[in-house]
Every structure is written in C-alpha cells, then in structure tokens.
C-alpha cells in the first residue's frame, strides 16, 4: 500500500478522528442553540445542520467559518464505517458495540433523509368547516385564478421566491406576463387615508392606490410570520395593464377582467392539496378548574376520503396525532375564541428509521454495559 493511502486509511479509522469530530459536533450544537435566540429554529437548522459549512457575514462577504452538520455528520459516518470494516472481528465480546454503531449509522442516515424530505404545513379549520389543503408556515405564493367558470377554478401559483428574484413570469395558462416591480420580504400595510404624507405608490390598479406598504425587518421568531408585499405589473400583448399591490396582509383576492375572462389574484401561504378533505366537527379546550392552565386540547375531525363515500371520525389531541395519507396531523393550537383549530401537518417518509436505529443502539449499549458489569462482578467475587 502506498504511504499516502496508508496515511488516509489510518486517519479514517482512527479514534482520534472520532473524538475530534465529536468535539466539533458539540460546539456546533451549542452554537446553534445560542443562535436560535436571534434566528429561530428553522433558520438555525438551515445554517448549522443542513449545510456543509456554517457561513458568517464578514462585511459584505459570506465566509465559511465552521464545518456544518453535513460535513461533520458525513465524516463521522465515514469514520464509523471505515473503522468497523477495518477492525471487524467475529465474536461476542464486541457484539454490543457493533449493534450500537450499526444503529448509529442508521440514525445518521435517517436524519439526513428526513432533513432533506421532511415538510411542515399547517391546517386551520373553523368549527364545521372543511378543507382539502394545508398551508406552509414559511413560504408564500402568488395565486392567479381564472374564475370565469363558477364550477371550476384554474389556478396558477407562483412561488414567492420567483417574485423575490424579480424575474418576469410567463405561463402558458395566462394571457399576460407578470413583471415584479418591487418586493418587501416583510412589511406593514396602512390605508392611504390614514397616512397622509406617504409617498406615491407604484401601484395603479386594484387595492394598490389605496394602501401604503412599509418595509419591515425580516423576523425569524417562531411565533411570528413574515408578511411580504410585492408590486406586480401585468403586461399583455398590447402593453401594460397596470401595477397591482399584492400582499399576504390583503385578505381577499383582487378581481379584474381581461381577455374576456375574470381573474382573481392573491398572495397567500403556499398550499399543499390532498385528494381527501378534513371537516372539523368539534374543538374542545379544557382547563383545570379555577385556573387557566390548559388540561387538554382536542379536535374531532371527519376524514372525507377521495371520491366521496362514508368517511370516518378521528380525535386528534395532545400526544395523539392522526396519521393518514402519509401525513401526520397533530394539535398545534387554536384561535378565534376556541372555534378554529390549528393542526400541524408533517410529511416525513423516514419516520420509522429513528425507531429502529434507537432500539438497536439502546440494545447494543445495554449488552455492552452488562458484559462489563458481569466482568466487574466476577472480578470482585474472586477472593
């Protein structure tokens, strides 16, 4: 074996590398925990764990300052696999160690997969209301709907990120192009009549001229949501139709007619449609008598399967989510005086991996611990 290859092999199988990587990962996790105060949990995951390097802003530049979760996790995985392949020997003495580390490999891979594919949504249901979609808690979209046919809506949804990039959107289903003319990732809206000195709005159509948008600092807090506003110009073959203000703060869609059809346009949380729907039959919120400490929240929902037919009922409450259609619905909150329930919706195809992995690791550690304990007791029993 050439000396360079031997050097690499020795490094990859060494316990020294393991210890260094474990120390690096502790610092990473600790730093990420502290940074949550500023960034919120989602941004922290992207910055520290779902990344090869942790970047920090140094003046104008973004500089990699520390290995990220993917790098440390990947090297740990390589170290683990190589060390075991290199040192593998048959026998019971190390059975616990082998089992535990095999479980660890599965755990790391499983978390990598779930980090890549897990999606989070929320579903808000009013008492008696029915919905077949859930909404993203992070992302928004600009939905343009052809509402000419009262029985059928054709929706074109443009992700907020496209608007933010400022790129012109041309879609075969739309008879006009959409040109972003301005974008605030977080903003406040005011009625123009209440802000007399405000500068002229670029908007000329719809609600636009009547409101004033002010940019706000982007928030990363878990209990807050960014409310973006954008100015979008619609351009038909024969020229501009005007500029509209779109914002998640404007509740109802703005309507207009063009090319003989009637249209609706709204900026809203990104939607994720399902082939079935849920109906909220009853939301219950119990407290302990004489206090405001919550005792239980629960939502009784009816699942209406695709294609009609008899649905079934399910009770979603704390520590008891509904798993249906590859999604998990759990009780996350409530609003409107206990008449609206908020269900968190999670899609995580690799949810089983940690169960298997953790059982293997726990079993392995227990075996190893018992082997040591038995040896210790035997040694002490000897006179």
């Amino acid at each position: 074996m050439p000396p360079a290859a031997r050097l690499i092999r020795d490094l990859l199988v060494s316990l020294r590398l393991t210890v260094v990587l474990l120390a690096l990962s502790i610092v990473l996790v600790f730093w990420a925990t502290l940074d949550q105060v500023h960034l919120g949990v989602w941004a922290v995951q992207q910055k520290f764990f779902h990344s090869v390097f942790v970047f920090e802003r140094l003046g104008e530049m973004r500089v990699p300052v520390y290995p990220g979760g993917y790098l440390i996790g990947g090297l740990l995985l390589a170290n683990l696999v190589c060390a075991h392949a290199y040192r593998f020997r048959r026998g019971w003495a190390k059975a616990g160690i082998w089992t535990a580390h095999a479980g660890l490999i599965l755990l790391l891979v499983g978390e990598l997969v779930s980090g890549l594919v897990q999606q989070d949504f929320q579903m808000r249901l009013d008492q008696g209301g029915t919905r077949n979609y859930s909404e993203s808690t992070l992302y928004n979209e600009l939905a343009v709907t052809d509402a000419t046919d009262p029985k059928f809506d054709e929706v074109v949804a443009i992700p907020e990120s496209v608007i933010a990039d400022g790129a012109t959107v041309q879609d075969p289903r739309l008879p006009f192009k959409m040109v972003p003319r301005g974008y605030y990732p977080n903003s406040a809206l005011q009625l123009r009549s209440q802000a007399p000195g405000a500068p002229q709005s670029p908007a000329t159509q719809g609600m636009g001229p009547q409101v004033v948008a002010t940019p706000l600092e982007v928030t990363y807090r878990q209990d807050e949501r960014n409310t973006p506003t954008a100015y979008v110009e619609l351009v038909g073959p024969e020229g501009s139709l005007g500029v509209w203000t779109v914002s998640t703060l404007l509740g109802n869609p703005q309507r207009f007619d063009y090319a003989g059809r009637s249209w609706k346009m709204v900026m809203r949380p990104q939607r994720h449609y399902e082939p079935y729907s849920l109906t909220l039959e009853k939301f219950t919120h119990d407290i302990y008598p004489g206090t405001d400490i919550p005792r239980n929240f629960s939502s009784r929902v009816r699942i209406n399967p695709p294609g009609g037919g008899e649905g079934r009922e399910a009770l979603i409450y704390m520590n008891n989510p509904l798993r249906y259609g590859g999604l998990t619905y759990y009780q996350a909150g409530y609003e409107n005086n206990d008449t609206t329930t908020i269900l968190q919706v999670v899609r995580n195809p690799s949810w089983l991996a940690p169960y298997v992995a953790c059982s293997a690791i726990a079993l392995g550690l227990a075996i190893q611990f018992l082997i040591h304990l038995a040896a210790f007791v035997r040694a002490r029993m000897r006179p």
Partner: protein
Amino acid sequence: MRKRIPIYVVAVAAVCVLLGPVAHPPGEPEAVRAFGRLPVLAEGRIKPLDSVARSTLLVIQGRQRVMTPDNAELTPDEWLLDVLFVPERADTYRVFVVDNPDLLSLIGKSDESLAIRYQGAAKQAMALVGFLPSRQRRMSFDEVAPYLAQIEAQEKLAEPVEAQARTRFQSAVIQLYGSLARYVRLRRCLEPEGTRDFLGELLRLQETLADGVEAVRAKEAGRPHDEARAAAVIAEGQRFIGMSETTDILAIPPEDAGADPSAWNNAGQALLETFGQGYVNPSVLAYAGMGYAWRNNEPEKFAQIVKIYGSTLERRFGRQLRKARVEALFNAAEPFYAGMLIYLAAFLCAVLSWLRWPGPARAAAWGLVALGWAVATAGIATRMWLEGRPPVTNLYSSALFIGWGSVALCLVLEAAYRNAIGTAAAGLIGFATLVIAHYLALTGDTLEMMRAVLDSNFWLATHVVVVTTGYASTFLAGILASIYIFRGVFTRTLDKATADALARMVYGIVCFATLFSFVGTTLGGIWADQSWGRFWGWDPKENGALIIVIWNALILHARWGGLVRQRGLMCLAVFGNIVTSWSWFGTNMLGIGLHSYGFTEAAFWWLSVFVASQLALIGVASLPLGRWRSFRA
C-alpha cells in the same frame, strides 16, 4: 464503645427526623393545625389550606416563617388565619420581599432608611460579611399600600416587555405586583373587603332574605316595594360579586360528593346562590363562624367549629380529606429539609474518615447516607402518591430525582469499594440537589397540574425518568472526578489503590451515563414524534440532552483511543458537570423553545459561578503532577 458510635449517630439523626412533624411547628394549637388540613381547590387541584399558606409565603417572601411586628413567630397556618379573618392585623406583617434599589425608591425607601443597627461587635461584623442581613428586606402590606397606584402603573409599563428583555427593575416590579395581587386575592377568598363581623352579616341576611328577595323582585317588576330592603340586598349582591371576581381559590365544596372538581365554588359564587336557593351556603357560614371565633380570640369556639365542619366534610369527601391530611403532614415534616442536613452530616463524616478514624466515621457516613436516602425516598413517594404521577414532573422534582438517583448509585459504589468515596459523593450531591430544589420551590406550588402537552404518565415515567437518571449519573462522574482532583492536589490521601479505584468508578459511571442519557434522549425523540410528528426538532432542551450524550461518548472514545489517561479522564468528567448543568438549567434560560420554563436571573448568576468553579478545578488538575501533594516524591 467506639464500635457503637456510628449506631448512636444514625439513631440520633433518625429520632430527629421522626420528631420533626410532631415537634415542628412548636406550640401550634391542634385546632389551628386542623384548620390547615381543610381542603380547598386551588391551582387546579384539591389541597389543604396549609399548602396554600406555605406556597404563598414561599412565593412572596422566600420563606415559610412569619415574624409579627413585636417579633413573635407565626406558623404559616396562623398567618393564613390572620390574612383571611383579621386582615388589618395581617397587613402589618412584613412578608413582601423588596430587594431592587429602584423599586425601594419607588415605595419611598432606601438602603439607609431600612438599615438594621446591630448591638455588639460580633453581630456587626457578621452583618458586614453578609451572615446577618444588613437591612430590612421585607415590607408589610401597610407600608406598600400608599404606593399601590405607582406600582400598578410601572407594572403595566413593564408587563408587555418580553421576560428575557426585562431590566432588573421591571422584573422586580412585576414580581412585587404579582405578590401583592396574590395576597389580595387570598384576603378576599372567604370574606369581603372591610368587614369586621361577617358572621353577623350573614345571619342577618339569612333572617331577612325572603323579604329582601321579594322587595328586589317587586322593584324589577315595577311594583310597590320596600326601597331600603331592596337596596340592601342589591348592595350585598354587589359585594359578593366583588369577592367572586377577585379570588382564585375555590374554597366551597359542592353539596354532593360528586367527583367532578369543577363543581367547587369560590365563596363569592356560593353566596350569590343564596338569593336563588333561599339559604346561605353552610360551608360559607362555617368559615364565617371560624372567622368570628378567631377574630374575637375564642379558641374553644374556634376549635369546635373547625371540628364540626371537618366532620361534615368527612362524610362527603373522605378520600380528598385523607389526601389533604397527608399533604399537611408532609408539609410539616419537611423531609427534604431533613434530608439536606443529614446528607451534609454524612459528607463531613466521610471526609473525616479520610483524615482520621477511618473505621467509625466511614460507618457513620454510610448509615447517614442510607438514612437520608430513605427519607428522600419517602418524600418522593409521598409526592408521587399525592400527585398520581411519576417522580419527575417539573424542574423542582427533577432536582429531587437527580439527587435521589445519584445517591442510589453512590450506595452501590460504596457497597463495592468501601472507601467512603461513594458516601462523600452522595453527601455532596444529595445536599447540593436539595438546596437547588429548595430555591426552585420559591416559584410556587411544586405539585402543580401538568399542562396538556406533558399530560402523559407513560412518557413522564419513561423518557423523563431515564433522561434524568442520565443527568444524575453524569453529575456523579463529575463529582467523583472532583474528589480525585481535590484529594490528589491538596492532600496526601490519594494513594495508588484509591486513585485506581476512583478511575474505575468514573469509567463505570460514564458508561452507565452514556446508556441512560442516550436511551432517555431517544425516548424523548419518540415522544416528540408521537405528539408533534417529528423525531428531532433541534429544540434547545433536546440539543442540551444531545450534547450530554455526545460528551459521554467522547469521554469513552478518548479513553479507548488512549488519548487520555487517569488525569485526563478526570478533567473530561469534571467538564461533564458543565455540560449537564447547561442542559438542565442553561437551556431554560434562553427563554425559547417548547421546553422552556422561563428566565431566572439569579439562577443564571449561580450557573455562571458553577461553570467558573468547574473550569478552575480543571485548571488545578492541569498542574504538573509534581505539584500534586499526593504524587510528590
């Protein structure tokens, strides 16, 4: 004779523990104690009035004992009786802690105006170094009352600020306002504001009730009526509404013994029902009778009414009454306070055994640890029975359980090694965790109800218990390592055999800690997946537990790889203390995440001191071995 000394020591300690509930509080009349055992529904659970008194006192003044202006000591029950029935007297007791200088100036006080002047040089010296308070820390309601409007205004300004962004003054004013509100709610729990003879009022109401209600009905219907009577009834009703709106203690049990706790009422609501049902609620009358007897200093009458009321409850609420009695007894016994002292004594005995008298002192230490552990076990078991829950339900009980688990492991170690190291570590951890628990109890009722998301006995019994055992064992490894460093550097007592034994102990405990912290953390992940649909969310508390697991794994791999030997292992184990204390308390101080319990400034200061001390210990251990007294040639 010398052989018997350990037995005598342990026997004396045991007798002191058993006498605790009987002897303490000294001289409290049986009737007052019986009053303390009466059940009410407060903070979501049925508990004795004694618990209401004690937890209120702990929150507002940080201790359970009350001093009157003429320096007599009151028990919590006596204080509660004065608050409920002779409020003008209770208003003169100094029970509100005010430490913040800005808050003091808000209520027209300063350090100088409150300074305590001690007679005698010894007391003055002690005050100077902080063993005696240098100024009055506590104010009476009467002293604060003239400034209520200012306090309320400042509280309104501070309240919207997020907890972790508040200044010291803002936190202090919110705390004082909360204490005052709590006190006022308690004062109006059984009798309305400003009454001197509530029993008389109720009896008169009872007599004139039919006519009065008739007059009100006639007035409402526009018929001729006795205006004065109607007005009197309406005024009475207004006072009852005032009472029912200001208290949060439901003292009046329902007429039938139905198990539904939501049928309990506060006194104001129960009195409002008088007009509908045509008679005054007998429980309210009974309490008014006790109030009359207490106010007019008629102990026989008071005892009689308490006894009669207790026996009427007995028939309907036998089970709840039994629980309330046990809880009051548990409060009086203060098992964790007793345990704290026993552990301290055990630690001193163990240290003594290294320096002198290895035989008897070691045996005494062993006996004391076993006794302290038995007392703590009884205390934890009683709490579990009262609550109907697994041992760990909040930060307070986690401190109790970490101490309990560590001491149990120490007893095993001591049985195996018989070198007083296990008992010394047990004494130290047992004492420290009970002191921490004492300070955590200052936030209120420690048997509080579980919020909905935590309401799962299965997960509390598995995840929480296992992960807390992981914390306990990581701490234990750190403490054993500290003993190694202390004895090695500062004394000549760390011979080769002891050093090797300690190294084996630390290694074994780290293995145990790895197993438990890992299993506990993953069980937490599974709970999270069951209730929130995700296994891992990088929540601060989860991260803290993860860091403990990785740190223990790091210690083991460093040792297997030969990167550290005995001394290095000890340094890593001491650093484990920092990692664990961060996960236990530091993550709560971030004030974010699903698991957090709120920011506490004093706790942050103590955590920093602890971390600094552990770093200093690691620094000491890094001295060249030639400087270690035990290893010097």
